[in-house]
């Protein structure tokens, strides 16, 4: 046996000898999965190639931007925040596999902004069973915050709540007598319908007509004609961007200048960019203002410039959402202390004081009894080719 071999053997022996020592000296590191001496791992199951990829990509970019900023400022108590992104493409099977990967291989400390209701509903039980935090999923489903669970938090206002308030506000504002609804034939549309009905009921009205379309349909001529025949003076649109453009354009093409109100799913710069002049006057509900460069405060303008420099694209409302969700995470992680676990993080989030930000986000409030951070939206309208806010957050 020569010297070289002896050295190798000694090194191996030393490594094995050091193993128990490592286990004894670093007990806290093993305490919370995904939290090591150097980093905190956060999982994000997104839709980057499926039907809502238009939303998934800026959302991810916003998350990454805020985490990178936090890392550049020294991280959270010296730990870097690492976002591991998986693309489930709105498919619950892929979502389940991606979630298992994030739980077992990447040992994610928390899951943030899982995207799409079927994916959220299929993966949330796995996340909670594994004792990981399920934060701010992109789904209107009430199961994301009820029944109360110590590890699940939501901050997207449910369509039902803010649409009830918006419908009520619109009626008192415009004294509409014949309200109608065009809705997407899925859970989203159903929830908006419940909200609008609830809002109308409080002012002694009811829906005069309602008609649905299948997700992805862009020819809405028969639906619009049907609503026109019902002589509606306000049409609520439970549509997403493309369908909003299709519905409003079709109404104008038919010479029907009816007032229309779209949910936050249609509140996007893409709506007026795609629709152009025909979309002027469209009302919408905003749960977060669009980051326009024109008229932006200095801080917001700097943020927009930084985003554009990084992604070579203008930010939109989804980018802002991603950024603000990551910001909530960073603040809660800081408040949870130097040795965070799921429990201490959740308690920190419950006690986080609401803050105003450069975007005009609603004040997100959680408590030990309520894990839904926001229930309200604001009324907006497309004027001169951009969304303009008309009201404060509606109760």
């Amino acid at each position, binding site marked *: 046996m020569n010297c070289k071999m002896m050295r190798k053997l000694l090194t191996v022996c030393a490594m094995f000898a050091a193993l128990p020592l490592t286990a004894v000296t670093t007990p806290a590191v093993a305490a919370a999965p995904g939290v090591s001496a150097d980093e905190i791992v956060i999982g994000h199951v997104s839709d*980057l*190639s499926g039907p809502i*990829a238009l939303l*998934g*990509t800026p959302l991810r970019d916003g998350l990454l931007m805020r985490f990178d900023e936090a890392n550049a400022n020294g991280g959270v108590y010296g730990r870097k925040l690492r976002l*591991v*992104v*998986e*693309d489930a*493409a*709105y*498919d*619950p*099977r*892929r979502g*389940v*596999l*991606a979630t*298992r*990967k994030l*739980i*077992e*291989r990447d040992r994610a400390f928390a899951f943030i902004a899982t995207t799409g*209701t*079927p994916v959220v*509903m*299929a993966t949330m*039980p796995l996340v909670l069973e594994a004792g990981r935090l399920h934060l701010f999923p992109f789904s209107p*489903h009430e*199961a994301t915050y009820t029944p109360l669970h110590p590890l699940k938090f939501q901050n997207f206002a449910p369509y039902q709540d803010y649409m009830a308030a918006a419908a009520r506000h619109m009626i008192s504002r415009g004294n509409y007598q014949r309200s109608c609804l065009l809705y997407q*034939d*899925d*859970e*989203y*549309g*159903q929830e908006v319908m419940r909200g609008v009905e609830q809002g109308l009921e409080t002012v002694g009205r009811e829906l005069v007509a309602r008609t649905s379309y299948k997700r992805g349909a862009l020819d809405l001529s028969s639906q619009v004609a049907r609503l026109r025949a019902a002589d509606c003076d306000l049409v609520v649109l439970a549509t997403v961007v493309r369908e909003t453009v299709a519905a409003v354009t079709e109404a104008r093409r038919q010479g029907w200048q009816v007032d229309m109100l779209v949910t936050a799913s249609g509140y996007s710069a893409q709506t007026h960019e795609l629709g152009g002049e025909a979309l002027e006057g469209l009302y919408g509900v905003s749960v977060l203002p669009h980051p326009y460069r024109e008229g932006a405060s200095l801080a917001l303008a700097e943020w927009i410039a930084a985003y554009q420099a990084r992604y070579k694209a203008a930010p939109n409302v989804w980018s802002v959402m991603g950024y603000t969700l990551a910001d909530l995470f960073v603040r809660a992680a800081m408040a949870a202390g130097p040795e965070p676990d799921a429990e201490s993080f959740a308690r920190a989030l419950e006690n986080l004081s609401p803050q105003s930000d450069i975007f005009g986000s609603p004040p997100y409030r959680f408590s030990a009894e309520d894990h839904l951070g926001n229930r309200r939206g604001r009324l907006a309208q497309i004027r001169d080719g951009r969304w303009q806010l008309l009201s404060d957050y509606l109760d």
Partner: protein
Amino acid sequence: MKVRAVEIGAGLVLLVLLLFWFGRAYGLAQLNLLFTYALAGLGVVIILGHAGQTVLGQGAFVALGAYAQALLVATGLTPLLALPLAAGAGALGGVLASLPAARLGGLYFGMSTFAFALLVEELLRRWESLTGGAAGLMVKGFSIAGWRLEQAGEQAAFSLLLLLGAIALCRRMLASALGRSWQAVREDEAAAAACGVDAVRAKIGAFALGGGVSGLAGGLYAHWIAYLSPEQFGLRLSFELLILAFLGGVRRLGGVLWGAALVVALPQAIALLRDQLPGEWTRAAGFELFVFGAAVVAVVLLRRPPA
């Protein structure tokens, strides 16, 4: 024989890779879904590969099985007893979808199965009082006499057991008079009819068996995913099952395992490889889909299936 030995060897290597590379529990969860998809794809192999009938709506049979299982379990029936009924729901769907076969053939008949899948998806969406509509349906975990199959390994073992049972049943059926009539109809329907084979009965039989095994897979799927909604059983699933059957060998019962490995495990393997690759471009949207598409094309080209 040599080919089979190579396949078994490759299968074992894949298994070891799944368990060690993906991580034990994660690998077993992959295997569980792989076996469940293989079971669903077995239905396509029977209908398309052996009876020669174009089927573009196999996902509907999976949906019927899944919803039947979820609803029966919700009424208090034990999951094990509900499974045969879920298979029955899939088989009934198969029989219904095969009825136009009396008048239609070839691609036209395939289109009618496509329409059947659309009808089923629409029914699941509209019949809210029963199916929960677009809001979906939560499904309890699988249990046998109080023993809950919670671990991925237990689930994978159970799925494998059912898959092997279904393959054995299909093998037996293929050797029966009905199975031989499928082959006769597949090769030449007119000649088969001239020889006294009842082509319509043969097609209905193939759809009943194919729908039944896919329905059984749906029953398992309901428990493994634990949440059902109509869009999960859209045309995408039907086409995935078609791809699965073609990649594995459309007439090979055991081939469904290879097809399922490509459809289920390959995208995950790509996701893991992506994590190892440097550079932002691998994080671009659609990267996995692009690599998956390229891999599928490569497999099809390399396999060079017999004409």
